[in-house]
């Protein structure tokens, strides 16, 4: 919703990708991963290191942060100092600590939301591609309707109705995003579902679940991963935009999206405070997508 939607793009890309999967040599999984990693370009390494750092920060937030995220430790808007490394926010909470705790909250929300949207959207997409017929028709038309209502308006109405709790935010963004995941999955899975090896496994009498997860899913993974990379980051933007329209996550918990919004007016006077949470989001977006690019490049079979 915040930034441009990005599904169909990868859909077509995927169709192309699926046909050009390289034949992998049989090595153990660890061995293969290590070999791949060693050959990874600098950008991918950079991405991996940043992501690992973020995850560590999120896990060990209470150990790293000097204060808790809700503790009032100073006056409102204290400047940067030894006591409060990055100053305090409007209620006198330590900015640096909130930034660290926000890693936990924000990434938690983003992971949950994307997991939800990929589970729902992916599953329905695979089902539609394999079963076709009326299942496909019904789900596709429902998704069409959902996609043609502007996402922001959808969120606005649903959130005013259900209230802006974190759980509702995750559920609503997750479900709305799943429509885009569905379109993508269905598009690429349809191309794979008609291939001979899928037919063969069906004739062999394999169950629906097996065909979906063992035969088709591995072959459509690259576009889904590419989508995951962007979707994951768009969650922050969605949270931020909703916060701008007055429907974001409420204090006391901190998240980068709302922190950008809360401090955004400072930028009009050249005060760099809002650049911190915005930078945190940007760095993660760049890191995740560097890794995704590398993965796509590897699976595209281009040998340069």
């Amino acid at each position: 919703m915040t930034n441009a939607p990005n599904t169909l793009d990868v859909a077509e890309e995927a169709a192309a990708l699926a046909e050009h999967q390289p034949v992998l040599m049989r090595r153990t999984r660890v061995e293969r991963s290590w070999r791949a990693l060693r050959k990874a370009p600098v950008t991918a390494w950079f991405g991996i290191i940043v992501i690992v750092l973020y995850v560590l920060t999120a896990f060990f937030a209470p150990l790293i942060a000097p204060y808790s995220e809700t503790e009032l430790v100073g006056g409102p808007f204290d400047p940067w100092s030894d006591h409060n490394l990055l100053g305090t926010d409007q209620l006198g909470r330590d900015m640096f600590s909130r930034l660290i705790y926000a890693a936990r909250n924000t990434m938690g929300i983003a992971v949950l939301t994307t997991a939800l949207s990929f589970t729902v959207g992916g599953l329905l997409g695979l089902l539609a591609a394999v079963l076709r017929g009326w299942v496909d028709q019904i789900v596709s038309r429902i998704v069409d309707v959902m996609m043609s209502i502007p996402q922001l308006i959808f969120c606005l109405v649903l959130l005013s109705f259900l209230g802006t709790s974190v759980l509702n935010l995750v559920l609503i963004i997750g479900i709305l995003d799943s429509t885009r995941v569905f379109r993508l999955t269905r598009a690429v899975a349809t191309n794979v579902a008609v291939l001979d090896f899928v037919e063969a496994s069906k004739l062999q009498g394999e169950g629906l679940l097996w065909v979906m997860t063992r035969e088709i899913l591995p072959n459509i993974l690259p576009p889904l991963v590419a989508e995951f990379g962007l979707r994951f980051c768009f969650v922050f933007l969605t949270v931020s935009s909703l916060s701008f329209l007055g429907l974001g996550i409420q204090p006391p918990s901190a998240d980068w999206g709302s922190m950008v919004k809360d401090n955004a007016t400072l930028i009009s006077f050249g005060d760099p405070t809002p650049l911190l949470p915005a930078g945190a989001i940007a760095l993660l977006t760049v890191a995740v997508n560097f890794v995704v690019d590398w993965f796509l490049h590897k699976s595209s079979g281009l040998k340069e």
Partner: protein
Amino acid sequence: MNPLIRTILQRLGFGLITLFVVSVVLSLLVGVLPGDFATRTLGQAATPDTVAAFRREIGLDRPPVERYLHWLADMARGDFGSSYSGAGSLSGNRRAVADLIAPRLVNTLFLAGLAALIAVPLALTLGLLAALYRNGIYDRLVNLVTLTSISAPEFFVGYILALFLANDVYFQIFPAISTVEPGASIFDRAYACALPALTLVLVIVAHMMRMTRASVINLLASPYIEMARLKGSAPRRVIVHHALPNAWAPISNVIALNLAYLIVGVVVVEKVFAYPGIGQLMVDAVRNQDVPVIQGCALIFAGVYVLLNLSADIIAIATNPRLLHPR
């Protein structure tokens, strides 16, 4: 039948059904919200008898199904109905939804057009260059810049642009708020819209550029490209003459989606620059539960979505001889 015409007719049919379902879904959604236009407008001042009088006046005392059917009947005649809000002066007691939407839609289309005019050629050029010089310094740099620009929320991008381009501390080149005088010339309009248009360009270029690059690179492993390269064509020629024509389908798809987004999803940018677009109209209507206006806007949005998707499919078919001339 020509596959192009068949697709168009089929999709238009589905489009109409989608529009109808959208209107039903929105009626239901708005119906479950607490309160209604009367209580929203009166706020704290809502005493039971004032609310009742208000509801009587705007017809909210009738059952929801009846209201919806009435609206649908009007719609079938091409009448968008009237807003619940009183107007005065020009159009009597109620404002016609069409009168509310028309000027806003013009503003929105103008802004979207301006942004697209800059963004689309820019994204295509950047994307093709990135594919040409892939994995080089240029590619990495463009990637970094565009990824950073899409990871900043739009309002933030807008504030930063306003700081640098509409503030006498730096450069006061463009107006900080986009007020459009009625009857302003096209150049005045473009000048007023400069900052919101630039913001939107920054937001959508990344996406289209990445898509262009990805779809072109994806084709580079195909045997026919290999062939072209082996016969000694220059890399530039390979990309523009061999890869690009086959990449039009995914590229036009992502362009269509971004154009739809420019029309449907820019309420945040409108707010940042106080630009009277249709997004604000719909958000105001949702906040005040002005159902006829919500319905009118939603129909336009859904229509835009359906039409742009259709155009993308047409381009996909038209640029693919296999689809255009099926055996």
